[in-house]
């Protein structure tokens, strides 16, 4: 864990980041190393090409959406704090760990709400706060690929909107999205927690 030469002090704003995101210093160090690894030219920030260099990610059907989620609207680079902030969404919820600093007022990054917001952003590419039918279709098309006919995609998307859309505006707003997810079995979100365990250090 401490094999590398970089220390917490090397990370700019390391302490504040730790407080803000809730990562421990070991985590933060690891993420910093990864950030530096991705940042091939040592620019200090990441561009989308760096993300695409991760081979598996480019094979992921929604890989480009994930990458987009890192970039704040309008920006073309991702610096380390932004990188960490996004990844903080995937941290498992700790039970009773008290931390100094603001924990209660701004919502912790890994709260369910924040996770849902992140997921919402994956759908809602144009960031207008609503998932339109077109956007939903795009997501479905990316995930389902060529194996399902267009008419099936249409009807699936239609059904999804029908179910979720309570105010009948033919789009899914974040509130509606949240309502759906609350009806879900809480265990469904375990994928998030399972993966996040890897950030806890259960690394092979």
């Amino acid at each position, binding site marked *: 864990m401490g094999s590398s030469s970089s220390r917490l002090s090397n990370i700019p704003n390391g302490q504040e980041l730790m407080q803000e995101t809730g990562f421990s210093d070991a985590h933060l160090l690891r993420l910093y190393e990864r950030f530096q690894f991705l940042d091939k030219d040592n620019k200090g920030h990441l561009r989308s090409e760096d993300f695409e260099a991760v081979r598996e990610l480019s094979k992921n*059907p929604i890989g480009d959406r994930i990458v987009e989620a890192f970039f704040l609207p309008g920006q073309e680079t991702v610096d380390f704090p932004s990188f960490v902030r996004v990844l903080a969404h995937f941290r498992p919820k700790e039970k009773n760990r008290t931390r100094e600093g603001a924990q209660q007022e701004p919502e912790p990054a890994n709260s369910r709400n924040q996770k849902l917001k992140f997921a919402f952003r994956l759908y809602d590419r144009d960031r207008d706060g609503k998932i339109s039918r077109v956007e939903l279709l795009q997501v479905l098309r990316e995930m389902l690929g060529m194996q399902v006919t267009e008419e099936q995609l249409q009807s*699936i998307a239609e059904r999804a909107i029908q179910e979720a859309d309570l105010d009948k505006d033919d789009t899914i707003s974040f509130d509606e999205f949240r309502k759906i997810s609350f009806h879900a079995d809480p265990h469904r979100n375990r994928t998030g927690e399972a*993966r996040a365990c*890897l950030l806890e250090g259960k690394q092979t």
Partner: protein
Amino acid sequence: MNHIYTKRALSVLIICAFLSLPYGSSGEAPPKPGEGVTILSPVKPDNGPQVYPEDEKSNLPVFTMDYPRIQIPFEITLWMLLASFAKIGFHVYHKITIWVPESCLLITIGLIVGGIMHSVKEEPPAVLTSNVFFLYMLPPIVLDSGYFMPARPFFENIGTVLWFAVVGTLWNSIGIGMSLFAICQIEAFDVQDINLQENLLFAAIISAVDPVAVLNVFEQASVNEQLYIAIFGECLFNDAITVVLYSMFSFVAEMPVVDPVDVFLGVSRFFVVGLGGMGFGILFGFVAAFTTRFTSKVREIEPLFIFMYSYLAYLVAELFAISSIMAIVCCALTMKNYVEENVSQRSCTTIRHVVKMLGSISETLIFFFLGVVTITTEHEWNWGYILFTLLFAFLWRGLGVLLLTQIINPFRTIPFNMKDQFGLAYGGLRGAVSFALAFTLPDHIGRKQLFVTATIAVILFTVFLQGISIQPLIEFINVRRTNRNVDTINVEIHSRLMEHTMEGIEDLCGQWSHFYWKDKFMKFNNRILRRIFIRDRRAESSIVALYKKLELQNAMEILDTVPGDISAAPSLVSLQDEKKESPKPKKIYMAEDLKNMHNILSKNMYKIRQRTVAFTSKHALPNDSQPREILIRRHASIRRSLRPGILQSTMVPKSQKYFSLPAAQNLGSKYPSVRLSYADDHETMSDVAYPTRRSRFSHPKRSSSGAMMPLHRLGTLKEVPSTDVLNESEGEGGSKDCSTPIDPLLHFSGWL
């Protein structure tokens, strides 16, 4: 109408019970074949023309009777029928089956029949010899459990499962054995002659949680998935340790002194047993998968391979005295993926159906005979010993669960909370496996009868008391339940999205968890294993081909939609009442499509393992998703044709209009004829409808129960041969002309 059925069923039951009595009298001949008794006994009463020396001419006997010849198969059949009638009888009264699990009812019936036989001084047929049990009755049940085991939750929890199975059973056995030995020292109970080894042996027998009993009870109590898998897996896999402990202790029981070498040998034997069982199972599974690659020309016997190979795995494991249950479970798990892609759709349905049927029959018979033999064996009752056995069984299980969960919870993503632990501890029912093991106890153990009696007592106690009370208790303490209802499409999409996201993030972070290894395995699977075992390896094309086949089959199913409930007629009336509340039918309507979409999404997502149905009801086939996939495609095409202005809510009133049509028209005449041709497909559907119907009674949800009948029979769609994949588009096109559009809607609503 229910009362008539009840009376009829009960009367048939009683008649059958009495009929079987005289036939049970010749109890010497074991009624199962293969027991080595030849029927061609010299005793042939009045068989054939006999020449009496007094008569000069012999008359041709017009009517002869030769009972011993058919005795064994006849008795087997009668017993099976009796048990099955009992099963039918239970379900006539819905209320019973909610409160009392079937196992209890069956044991009760067995007790009654046993009581009758005992009072008439008849001997029961010596069916429940342990040989018969282990070789004939147990494999179908285990195959059933293994085949429908939800693979993905199982593999995700495999550490927990193995932990509970191995360490838990070990803990239980040793704990119970030791404490019983301590009890034996007390003079008051008069059991001082039981030494430590025998106590340990007995403890090994009764500490094994039994798959038959547990699953019977748990499938009704819809607990959360983690708990279910933990207990499901535990009871299947503790067979390994039970076998080892049993053989070790029975071996050791003969010896006065235990060497440390024996303990070491016991440990190594455990590995042999466990890994050997798994190895054989996987081996046979692969062989079966490979065989089915070449069976495209002999579709009719495809299901046979599945059964033969599983059974072979079981027998070979028995041959080497390794864990046969593990062998057959691993065989089924391995085999299932590949076989289901190779065989035809009909074979797949047949396999599933027959597995379920055999499992159900075996289970029924086991419990039934448990009841019968309870009455008819000699018992040796010892209050102290038996009561303490019960106490310790309970105590040690509770302690064990508590302790083990504390140890393993940190490793789990979703830790078991206290309520889950209670469910785990309380759900440890013992059943027929313990019983059979007790019967196979070597005779040199002096107190064998006591052990048998104690085992029966423990079984009856756990099955009755715990089995009946577990569901109310679980509801009372509010164990996390599963969301058995189909989730909305959005949740499904969202879950898939999150999975992809997680994979992406994982790749991004460059860290690997066990998902990575699973991914690796899936890649290995796709690259190598599937090439060997699957005939048509290109995943996309096989899915497309399957869809086409299914669509054709589904076209046939649309013709024959009704699961033949005559009682559906009143439901039409209730529907007319519901007409006023449009949201509800709308929801029903959508829920069906949801299942379809659910399944399409499940089957088609990249890189994500197919989610099998998380839970399968013990008494029904799992949600046969593939026909429903077709339904949705049909539906889409149909809706296209109706698209202008007829979406969502407006669709439904249209269907309701149909309900108000005089329903009686086409019902009576057309059903029998249509049903004959599509009998097998239709049966599957009705079975699929079953689990949801069952859950409906426990949740007071108001919805239209019973099947809806299509009011418009289609005579125009002909049965399309399933191999003719090119007819897909024609099938779709052709159906649009008829008034098909409404039928699937009714069809959908009926299957809830």
